[in-house]
Structures are given as structure tokens and as C-alpha cells.
């Protein structure tokens, strides 16, 4: 696990003295890194238990699966965001790219009659290219990721409105068939194909992050870009790659959203970048980069989805309580992370 060496070897967060050189260093320290993820997991279990006790029909497998079904696109987008945040960057353009993808799909499929099998790869390509260009601007021209992706956000939203200001319905057979398809599971439960796609993305991303060279480069770049550069790691390639991955994931999220909504609209996914960032933070990934797990992001998305489920089960709570709860949760988790990292040093 050389990636662990990179993470614990970060400046300012040294392992216990005397253990750094040993082969089994930081066993105790390593386990602390899992605390945020474990905290998110226990919160999820607690929320589900309380919900199950309070509301009739809450404690069923289908409720959990529905959270997946309703948040498959957010899950995919948050996976891309995790890559970016692990390198210490940020991508504000994801929500707009999602909207742009739904808009392009809808206008090409409904307006031009293009076959979906051609449109979907094209949309994914556009998302990846947008991410690639932003990554290049960030790396080669040394402009802050915040500003570059902000411009990307304006650009993608602007392109949406240029295509059309109204919602375009998608009536194509392939899309409707995919949208209505149910994959039956034992026990009268089902998921949509979107969930399968999202879980596949999570699996691939987890493999890339934890078992490939690119993944280790991502952690190293986020830990300390200068050290990574001095170690001879391809920082430029890594940084551009993560924004490309994020663009691709946003486009894929857009495709899933167009399946979910069966329409393309410039106002889809407004503020989704905040949801994605919140999911990543609640999942225990540090916004400074270099530390975090993809599993945490998945749990973060589930927590956000479960909050909405609880509020809809409660019935009397207004929608703005969602925002207040998410804000409170963010606060608690950030405080927790802060306490853990303070104890480590």
C-alpha cells in the first residue's frame, strides 16, 4: 500500500516517530484515517434505524434502493468530484455540464432525430473535452481551479440557453425503454439501469484510485504538489486527467439525469456542484486534497439522499429544512475531521 505511505508521509502529518522507517509503520495512525468514513457509515445506519422506528414502511430494502435510483446521477458526478478534490482542486462546472449534457441529448435525439447510440458517446466526449480544456488552463496558465471551473460553469450553462430556453422532452424509444426498465431483485425489489451504471462507475473509479498508478499520482499530487513534482511524478498529466475524469463523469451524470427526467433543460441540476462537494466532504475527503476514500463519497451521497427521504416521509417539514440539515451535517463532519487531524499531529 504505497499510497498509504504517500498519505501519511505528508508534511505536517508525520506518522509516529520511529515508525516512519519501519515496514509496518503507522498501524494505529492508519486506522484513524477510516474514522470519518466510519462516522458517515454509522450516521447512515442511525438515520435509517431512526427512520425505520418513526415511519411506517421506511425500513424496507426498496427505500434504500430508491435512494440509489433517485441519486444515481449525483453519485456519478460526486465520483468525478472526488478525483478533483483529492488533488486539492475543485470543479464548480459539474452541475452546468450535467445540464448541458441533458440539453444536447434532448435536442439531438428529439430535434434532429439522431440515434441515441451516437448521441450518448458524443455527449460523453463533449464533457470529457470540456474537462480536459479546463484542466489544461488550470495547469499550463496557472489560473486558480475555482476561477477556471467557474468560467466553465458559465460557459456550459450559457451553451444550454443557446440551444434552447425551454425544456425539451425526450420521446425516443431507446431512452424511454431504458428509463422505464426495471431490474428485478429478489424480494420484490428493483433498481433502474442507471443504478447499475452508477455502481459500475464507482467500482471502476475505486479500482483506478486505489490500485493504479494514476490513482497514486492523484493522492500524491493532492498531498503535496511540489513533492510530487520533485519525485518525478507526472503532475501535469494527473491534474489534467482528474478534470477530464470529472468532465466525463458529469456528462455521464447528465445522461443518467436525462434518463431520469426524460427531458433536457437548461435549469436542470442547478446547484448540483454544491451537493457533490457536500457529499465528498461528508464522506470524509479533505478539501485540501491527498486524503479520502471513494467509499466515503458513496456514503455521503446516500446520507444526502436519505435526508430527503426522511423529510418526504415526515411530510410536514418544508423543503428548506433539507438545506439546514445538510449545513448542520457539514458542520459536524468538518468538526469531526478537524478533531481527528488535530489529534494526529
Amino acid at each position, binding site marked *: 500500500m504505497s499510497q498509504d505511505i504517500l498519505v501519511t508521509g505528508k508534511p505536517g502529518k508525520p506518522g509516529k516517530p520511529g515508525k516512519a522507517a519501519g515496514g509496518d509503520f503507522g498501524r494505529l495512525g492508519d486506522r484513524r484515517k477510516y474514522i470519518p468514513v466510519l462516522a458517515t457509515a454509522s450516521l447512515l445506519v442511525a438515520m435509517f434505524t431512526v427512520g425505520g422506528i418513526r415511519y411506517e414502511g421506511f425500513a424496507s430494502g426498496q427505500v434504500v434502493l430508491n435512494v440509489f435510483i433517485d441519486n444515481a446521477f449525483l453519485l456519478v458526478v460526486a465520483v468525478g468530484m472526488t478525483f478533483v478534490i483529492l488533488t486539492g482542486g475543485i470543479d464548480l462546472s459539474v452541475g452546468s455540464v450535467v445540464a448541458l449534457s441533458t440539453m444536447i441529448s434532448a435536442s439531438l435525439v428529439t430535434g434532429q432525430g439522431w440515434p441515441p447510440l451516437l448521441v450518448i458517446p458524443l455527449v460523453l466526449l463533449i464533457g470529457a473535452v470540456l474537462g480536459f480544456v479546463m484542466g489544461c488552463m488550470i495547469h499550463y496558465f496557472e489560473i486558480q481551479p*475555482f476561477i477556471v471551473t467557474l468560467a466553465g460553469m458559465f460557459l456550459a450553462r450559457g451553451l444550454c440557453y443557446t440551444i434552447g430556453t425551454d425544456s425539451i422532452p425526450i420521446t425516443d424509444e431507446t431512452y424511454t425503454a431504458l428509463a422505464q426498465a426495471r431490474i428485478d431483485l429478489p424480494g420484490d425489489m428493483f433498481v433502474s439501469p442507471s443504478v447499475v451504471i452508477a455502481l459500475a462507475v464507482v467500482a471502476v473509479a475505486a479500482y483506478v484510485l486505489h490500485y493504479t498508478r494514476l490513482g497514486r499520482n492523484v493522492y500524491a499530487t493532492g498531498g503535496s504538489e511540489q513533492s510530487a513534482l520533485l519525485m518525478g511524478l507526472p503532475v501535469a498529466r494527473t491534474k489534467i486527467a482528474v478534470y477530464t475524469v470529472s468532465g466525463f463523469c458529469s456528462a455521464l451524470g447528465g445522461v443518467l439525469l436525462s434518463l431520469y427526467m426524460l427531458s433536457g433543460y437548461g435549469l436542470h441540476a442547478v446547484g448540483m456542484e454544491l451537493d457533490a462537494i457536500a457529499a465528498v466532504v461528508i464522506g470524509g475527503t479533505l478539501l485540501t486534497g491527498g486524503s479520502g476514500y471513494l467509499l466515503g463519497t458513496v456514503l455521503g451521497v446516500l446520507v444526502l439522499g436519505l435526508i430527503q427521504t426522511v423529510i418526504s416521509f415526515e411530510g410536514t417539514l418544508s423543503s428548506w429544512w433539507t438545506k439546514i440539515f445538510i449545513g448542520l451535517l457539514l458542520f459536524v463532519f468538518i*468538526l469531526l475531521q478537524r478533531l481527528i487531524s488535530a489529534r494526529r499531529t
Partner: protein
Amino acid sequence: MTAPTGDAPVTSPPRNPRAGRPAAALRHRLFWPALVLALLLLANLLFTPGFLSVEMKDGHLYGSLIDIFRFGAPLILVATGMTLVIATGGIDLSVGSVVAISGALSCLWVSGLADQQSAGGVLAAVGLALGLSLALGVWNGFLVSGIGIQPIIATLILMVAGRGLAQLITDGQIVTVNSDPYKLIGGGYWLTLPFGVLIAAAVLAVTAFLTRRLALGLLIESVGGNATASRLAGLRSRGLIVTVYAFCALCAGIAGLMISSNVSSADGNNAGLWIELDAILAVVIGGTSLAGGRFSLGGTVIGALIIQTLTTTIYSIGIPPETTLLFKALVVTVVCLLQSAAFREKAFHLRRRRPGAAPASADEKVRVPA
């Protein structure tokens, strides 16, 4: 963008080999943003010949230029506060929510008055809203300096929860008020000028005095340069950071009053939506580095004016509103690229080979963003 754009007299010679050349004006921090603003105004003049004319009607000044200032006043205010926060190396994402909360609270208070025209009641509402804004700013500052949370996340909490709070205050409704004194704040005129512009100018003047005539600006910049070193040098970094966030929230609160007063209603969901992004953009366009350590209030004002002029231009030239964002993205990209020293060197081949290669290579290494 850790490397400065090379303007201030304190910059050491090896880092800015071109200082003192005839092209010194080109190197000035405000040159590129001012050029963009001038070009934008020129473009307007070409499309609308009477664009720059200002006329007097009913004792008020009217004209596109006045409109730019009038509608840009809230953005200038928010961006002023944001400049100081960014100068300490922080960022405040919560200003949009504070705008919404301040507008919601004051409108709710005014709408509950027996006599909405009473100046005392309106003043109480203003005081209440600004007090709450200050408290929210202190909360942000406490999270950043007291607990030591990264500014972008610390203020993200209030950004997300604040919208919910604003809607909680207005109960999800749009609160409308019918009060002349309240209307004055954002929509009224005083001494022939829009009152909002005067407020923004006053806040700006006080800020400029406090930061540039007193030592406060230097202290803020040194905290932004290195908070630990500043503390060891005897500065009260924590207190300064809390002050700066409180000031930023106060500015946002005033902007919230203006925005809600201009339309005589408070919308917890949409008031000040994305103003934080515009404000950060204004600061960056104005040449203040997001890395902190130095700031330019003049640049921020120019940046805010560029953004507002852009919006006005889009309406006056007759660019279809659908492409507004596209146009904005284009201008933002161009301005940021022009601001980027790395881009200028690569695009215009400005980098000259100098005999003493050592400083140049040292410069190269320094510039790697950590």
C-alpha cells in the same frame, strides 16, 4: 497564481526583470482590467452612440453610466468585503446567503410594522438585519480562525444552511413591503445620485481609509502572506481574521438591504443567488490573487464594474439574453488569461532570455503552486 503580477515597488528585482522599462504602464496591476473596461465601454459607444451621456431629469441623474453604478452597487459592496477576506488568504462563499437572510429579516420586520412609513421602524429593521449579518460573519470568522477550518468549507456550511435559514425566516414566501423609507435604500435618490451608489461609495471610502491610510491593510496582507509568522511577529491574526469575515458579512448584509429594497420584497430563494461567484470574480479580475497576501480595492471596483457593464452591454447591444452567460464566460476567460503571467509569457513570448539565468530558474521553481 502565487507569483505576483509584478507591480508593487516592494517586488525584488530578480522576480520582476522588466520593472522600470518604458512598458511599465503595461505591467501595472490595473492595466489589463482597466483596458477591458474601456473596451467594453467603447463597444457600447459604437453600438449605442448616446451611451456615455448623462442627463438630469426631475433632479435625478439618468443615463447608462449611472445605471451601471446603481445596479452594480450591491456587487461593489460585496466585492469590497470579499477583497479583504481574500487578502487574508480566505474566501467567503456565504455572502449570497447573507444577502438573502439580511433582506428577508428586514423585510419581515418592516412588513410587521403598524406604520410601514415610520423611519424609526425601518431603522430598527436595518439595525436588526445588519446585526444578524455581523453575527453570521463572526461565526464564519470563528470557524476559520478559532477552529481552524479551511475557509472554503467553513463558509460553505453557511452558504448551504443560510439559504434554508432565509426561507425559514420568510416561511418560504416572498415578503413584500410598501415602505418609502425602506425603498430609499436601494431605489431612492439623494443629492441627484442613487442612494445605493452613495452607500457603496461611503463604505468603499471608509474601507480605503482604514486599510490604506492606517496600518490595517498592511496587517491584513501580512496575515494573508503568512498567518503563523504574523502571529509570531505580534499580530493578533485571529482577531483580524474574525474582523475581516464580520466586515465581509456586514457588506453583504447592506447589499442584501439594497437588493430587497430595490424590488420592495424579499425572496429567500433567489435574492443574491450566485453573487458570491460574481464577487469573487470581480476580486480576481481586479488583480487580487486568491492566494492572499495582497489586495487592490481599486482593482475590485473595476472588476465589479466590468461585470455590471457586461450585463448592461448585453441588454443595450441587444445580445439575446440566452447567450448572456456564454458572453460572460468568454470575457471571464479572456480577462483571466490576460491576468495570468504564465499565459502572457507563452502567448506573447514575453519571456526574454537574460544572461544571469540563475534568478530566472529560481523564479521558475517558486512559481509552482503548492
